[in-house]
């Protein structure tokens, strides 16, 4: 009906900030990372995923989307030669997340397979300063009167309020802090994939769910303003378009509409490359589009890497 992120913002009591937070920008601008040769490797890796990976002429999205993600993560992981603390990360696939909370007397719940989760041993330090957090008090959440904010949500009778990422991992798991969630829209048929706006809303809901579960584990179940905010990042892609998100949970007091709000920074619709041509397109015996990857944007890869390195650099 209307953009999903606005609805998700209301449901999670969040204020939206466009662009990525300055901490992440700082990592991107840090020249010591040697991003030039990484660009070459990133181009090769995109070409591998999109062009070279299969014995058929062109790989399908179900194959190239996860392959591109694995290749990008492989390049990022190889940076742990330079930053040894990067090896304190672990990828977990197919983890199920469950979190419940109340918003103005409506009980909401997030459940489901939340894609691929990367955990780390150390939490991400808070991205927003104290002043910014206090400034969210004045921010008024957008309401959608007369449309109820729970429109398009499935109403279910919940008998057990499940509440932990401990649901996904047992106690004593050393990599206990959720770091980044990855969502791969890899369905072949376009109608089975989420549109960018819906994907961003899904990313926000799951990041919120993970952060809330972690906060409840760390600080108990009572709703209150958090002293140390919990930061969870999220990256969604369909193989070409990337959505980046950093979510900071400032408060678990979600019943009322005022007070401190949570913060989310979203950088949306970043293209990694313009077009990947497997066979050159020839019109009237003239090659109009040569084979290969064209329009590679190194900035998108830099953002991916910066979000990966965030918290250890």
């Amino acid at each position, binding site marked *: 009906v209307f953009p999903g992120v606005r609805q998700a913002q209301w449901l999670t009591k969040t204020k939206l900030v466009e662009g990525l937070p300055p901490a992440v920008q700082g990592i991107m601008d840090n020249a010591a990372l040697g991003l030039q040769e990484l660009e070459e*490797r990133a181009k*090769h*890796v995109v*070409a*591998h995923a999109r*062009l*070279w*990976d*299969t*014995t058929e002429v062109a790989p399908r999205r179900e194959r190239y989307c*996860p*392959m591109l993600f*694995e*290749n990008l993560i*492989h390049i990022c*992981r*190889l940076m*742990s*030669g*330079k930053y*040894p603390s*990067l*090896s*304190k990360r*672990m*990828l*977990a*696939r*197919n*983890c*199920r997340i469950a979190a419940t909370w109340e918003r103005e007397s409506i009980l909401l719940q997030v459940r489901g397979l939340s894609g691929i989760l990367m955990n780390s*041993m150390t939490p991400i330090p808070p991205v927003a300063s104290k002043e910014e957090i206090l400034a969210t008090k004045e921010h008024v959440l957008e309401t959608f009167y007369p449309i109820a904010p729970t429109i398009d949500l499935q109403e279910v009778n919940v008998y057990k309020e499940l509440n932990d990422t401990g*649901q*996904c*991992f*047992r106690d*004593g*798991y*050393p*990599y206990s802090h959720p770091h980044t969630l990855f969502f791969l829209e890899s369905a072949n048929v376009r109608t089975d994939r989420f549109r960018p706006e819906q994907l961003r809303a899904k990313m926000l809901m799951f990041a919120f769910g993970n952060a809330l579960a972690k906060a409840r584990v760390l600080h108990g179940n009572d709703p209150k303003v958090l002293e140390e905010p919990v930061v969870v990042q999220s990256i969604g892609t369909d193989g070409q378009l990337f959505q980046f998100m950093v979510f900071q949970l400032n408060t678990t007091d979600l019943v009322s509409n005022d007070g401190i709000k949570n913060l989310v920074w979203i950088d949306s619709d970043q293209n990694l490359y313009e077009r990947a041509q497997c066979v050159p397109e020839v019109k009237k015996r003239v090659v109009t589009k040569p084979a290969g990857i064209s329009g590679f944007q190194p900035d998108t890869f830099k953002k991916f890497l910066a979000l990966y390195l965030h918290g250890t650099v």
Partner: protein
Amino acid sequence: MAALGPRRLLPPGRRWFSQTVPGAPSPPASPLYPPVVASITAKSKAAKSRRLQRFNQRVHAAATVEEKLRLYGKLQRPKYMVYPQTFALNADRWYRSFTKTVLVPGMPPRAGATKPPVAAAGATPETGRAPEPGAEAPRDAEVPGAAKTPEPAAGATPYVDIGELRSLACDALLQESFYQNKKRPFLYRDQDHTPGPFLTQLVSTLAASLSCRNPLLAVSSLDLNPEVNYYWHHGKEVVVHGHRKGRVDPVRFQIDDNPHLQIRVPKQLPEVVPLESDLGDVPVIDHKPSKLPLFKKQYENKVFIGSKVADPCCYGHTQFHLLPDRLKRERFIRERLEDQIEVVYRSNGIASLFAWTAAQAMYQGFWSEADVTRPFVSQAVVTDGKYFAFFCYQLNTLALTEETIKNSPRKNICWGTDSKPLYDVVEDGNVKGFNDEVLLQLVRFLLNRPKEL
């Protein structure tokens, strides 16, 4: 006339009828008739060999490698499908005879410089390595699963920190088997539930942490679930039935393999032994391949290393194979075929590595008529989640067809170990009986690189 060499019998300008001027510097007359060769289309052995020669020339003259591969596998005929992971008895002997491979037990001796000295005391000292001085606590039999602090080693930079790697391996194992809540495994899909993800995690984290010591890993390409195919001819047979009955045909084989994980690199691994070495004998089996049992099918002849020819990472480094449920140890023990357990690992190693190295050689333009000028080396680890077997393969020859095998004395060589367990059991968040040997061998495999790097 007396043969007195060229002599001027007549003054120049005068011709005498029936005598040609001997040794005159006139240009040699071009042959008046075309050379007499066998026909192309006749149904005769000479015509068959002439057709073969024309085909070979066409492939030699192909401009690009893709064109060469296309011509090489153009003709489709029924061929034997060779499965690297097979339950057939004594399959490794058969596979060695198909691929002209010599099996050498144990790992190849490497120069002392390429082996990483290890920081933990108690690791087996190899020749040429002094044990590392330093106060290390002796390794315990029980290793706690939570993050173990890496053992401090004096001057640790050139040395491999085995404690750190052990903790990484244990963390990966515990996450997959203990900490993550998963649903029950699907029927007969136990391998996808725990050992598969464990292997992926283990290799990716180990490769990432070893990339500072091995610059080749830093430019490597990691493939998950790639496809490796190779098609070749070996030996000859008579066609049994059909409209081509009675004709003599080469025996065709195709390997279609799906390793669990593979690492491809842009530079080739160094050779282990020189190209012409002879380290043993190739078994000769007098039966038809269908007795193994092997079955014939006709489909596309594919040659593929995991990505297309245009990829710069065109050489192989290491493959990781996961044995499926139907080949697990308990089944063999139940059927009282304990000696076939090792055969499974060996046949997987030999067939997969032969296919991979041969496809790499074809990507460089070599084929059975144009034999390799340098050996192609790759490594593989075959595992069922707990037991690991290591293989190293050196491809010395691609000439396996009936005509070319007579002229080439070279043999391919495969070094392989028996399967050893990495750990004993996982209980309550602890890994019991962790075997550092296996981890060390894995680390050695990953650190293998050309001498220049």
